[in-house]
């Protein structure tokens, strides 16, 4: 045994070995028959690593096979090289590509590098700026979670702690005997009631589904006028996001906050749409009428009013608003279809019978004017 072979041959393809694949698997026939996506992904990784040689056609074939089985597999995302401005040419979004606005509005003020904004508060006003107090010093200790089992242990610990916590928080839960007058003397009814309220509040908070304590206005006394517009815009964006997520009460708060900074017909229009979603039709109507008194040509407001009246079974009014909307915007399919429905039904049926029809059609067209801007 004079041969001095190393104990193990160094592997030519560590990846192939790690995945426990054979070279025989990397074959058109085998890949073509394979239906196991996980296996195909492994094969593709080996092929792409080029540790067993570079076969562009086989890589493509494997990708095609995976695409057939699972077209959305993440391994198929190919990061194309980024485009430069020249590549985009005219197909690009000119508005997004145009930076002159940004540069003009913010950078041309001749200063060393940062343009000055106007001072935030003038003279006497400065004293009234709200200063939030500095937090009191505090420390918190926490154990690192090492792994899954630790996490479960921590969870279990929490679970077992919870009931004891409750009793811990309310040591007076023990019934006081009716004859024990000294204890009753010490018993503070108000304090106990307060505790119950607090507990109730805590429970509510735990169930977090809304924003508790979100103010309906934004503090702007200390802000410069040029800062107000971005603030109003940001509150509006938050409102739109909440609306899209289906949190209508939150959206309402944010639209109110935006309006507390700056009046805007667009935001009022959006708020009206939220009111419609919350079935607060009176508020919605008053918002929409306000918009029309300022801008009688607002198609969106007209359509929304029409929808509300259709929903509330007042077809005459609804028809009136849809008519003016379609006059202003003849291409509006929503107005045309609603008008068709309303006028078709109105003469032949009494209002009561027509009821369900209005409701159904209103629901159908609902999403079409839901677009919030």
């Amino acid at each position, binding site marked *: 045994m004079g041969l001095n072979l190393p104990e193990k041959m160094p592997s030519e393809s560590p990846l192939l070995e790690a995945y426990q694949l054979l070279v025989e698997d990397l074959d058109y026939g085998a890949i073509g028959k394979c239906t196991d996506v996980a296996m195909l992904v492994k094969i593709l990784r080996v092929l792409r690593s080029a540790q067993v040689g570079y076969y562009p056609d086989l890589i493509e074939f494997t990708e095609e096979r995976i695409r057939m089985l699972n077209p959305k597999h*993440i391994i198929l*995302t*190919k*990061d*194309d*090289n*980024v*485009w*430069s*401005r020249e590549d*985009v040419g005219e*197909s*690009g*979004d000119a508005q*997004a*590509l145009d*930076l*002159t606005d*940004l*540069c003009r509005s*913010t*950078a041309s003020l001749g200063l060393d*590098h*940062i343009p000055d*904004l106007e*001072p*935030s508060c003038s003279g006497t006003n400065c004293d009234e700026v709200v200063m*939030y107090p*500095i*937090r009191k*010093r505090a*420390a*918190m*200790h*926490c*154990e*690192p*979670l090492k*792994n*899954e089992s630790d*996490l479960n242990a921590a969870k279990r610990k929490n*679970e077992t702690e919870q009931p004891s916590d409750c009793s811990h928080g309310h040591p007076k839960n023990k019934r006081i005997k009716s004859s024990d007058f000294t204890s009753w003397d010490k018993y503070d009814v108000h304090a106990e009631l307060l505790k119950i309220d607090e507990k109730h509040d805590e429970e509510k908070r735990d*169930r*977090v589904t809304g*924003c*508790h*304590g*979100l*103010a309906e206005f934004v503090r702007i006394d200390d802000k410069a006028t040029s*800062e107000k517009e971005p*603030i109003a815009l*940001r509150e509006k*964006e*938050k409102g739109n*996001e909440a609306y*899209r*997520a*289906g*949190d209508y009460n*939150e959206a309402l708060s944010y639209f109110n906050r935006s309006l507390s900074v700056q009046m805007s017909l667009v935001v009022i229009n959006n708020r009206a749409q939220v009111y419609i979603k919350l079935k607060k039709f009176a508020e919605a109507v008053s918002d929409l009428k306000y918009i029309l008194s300022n801008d009688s040509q607002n198609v969106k407001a007209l359509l929304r009013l029409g929808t509300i009246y259709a929903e509330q079974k007042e077809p005459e009014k609804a028809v009136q608003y849809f008519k003016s909307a379609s006059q202003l915007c003849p291409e509006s399919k929503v107005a045309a279809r609603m008008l068709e429905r309303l006028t078709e039904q109105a003469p032949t049926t009494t209002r009561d019978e027509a009821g369900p029809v209005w409701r159904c059609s209103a629901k159908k067209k609902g999403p079409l004017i839901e677009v919030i801007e």
Partner: protein
Amino acid sequence: MDKPQMILHQYNQLNYTAYDCKWIPSSAKFVVLGGLARGTGCIDIFEVTANDVKHVKQIEKSKPVKCGTFGATSLQQRHLATGDFDGRMCIWNLEQPDIPIYQVKGHKEIINAIDGVGGLNIGEGAPEIVTGSRDGLVKLWDPRQTVDPVAVMSPMNVDGDTSNGRDCWTVAFGNAYTPEERCVAAGYDNGDVKLFDLRTMTVRWEANLKNGVCHLEFDRKDICMNKLVATTLEQKFHIFDLRTHNEKTGFATLSMKAHDSTIWACRHLPQNRDVFATCGGEGSLHLWKYNYPASRVKEDGDKKPIGVVGNAELVQDVKLGGQPINAFDWSPDKQGLAVATGFDQSVRVVIVTKLNRI
């Protein structure tokens, strides 16, 4: 052609390693923070023009600068808060950058991450800065108080020993929608994510993601906390819906595999919280859109509310270079404008088009 396109506006080669980049609010300028080969640090200022990116100024500092934020400064002042390799937290006036206007040796080791809230009209309440360090501590600072942090979140082993802390890689503010409410999320090298409630000073929630947590970000800092995105070392990112907490299952989670490498960063579009970008280890940049489910809450077996997670849709992906993209920042003033730094000693200005159509 209706989906957003990512376009490289300008590519600049740097003579140092960049660790972080941030837009200077309400300006067309951005800062790049990094470390020079000779062991010093630098704060570099660039200016974007319509067709070009101009280098404005380089400020050299004694230690490499790891991270920075404008989150706790007013829109008038725009002071930059930074954390460096030596554990020092400094606040700079970029007009007079020779000496910091605030300096504190906050940590024993490198400050990995920094975040600010209460400034720039984002977040109610006092301006505060949070730093996370390799020494395992997360410290909360008020720029109006020097020397001492206002709060310290320290790791502790079972026997009360605080010396063996995990490496804190990322910190993020959130839930700052009233002057009292505020949360800090911290991510550690062992995959821990902890959510500290600063109102009650308790750990509100914690989880282990099995892989080191590279970056955490709330979709917005100044709303009742809605979503938290955590990116990890091994290809995955997790989206937590923070609106509904269930006693048994915690928050609803969506885990996605992407990039085929470490995901270094995740940044939400300031103009739309449901659009975000993730940066990968092979120089790729992905743009995602989160879609909510029809109903975000349902009842579990015990009639307790349980969150329902939506889905994340890959809107666009491009490759910016061969090396990891380690930092990314959206311009707060111009929708779609962004800056990214890579380990190939470069900084890129990227424009994403058609964002208002998704």
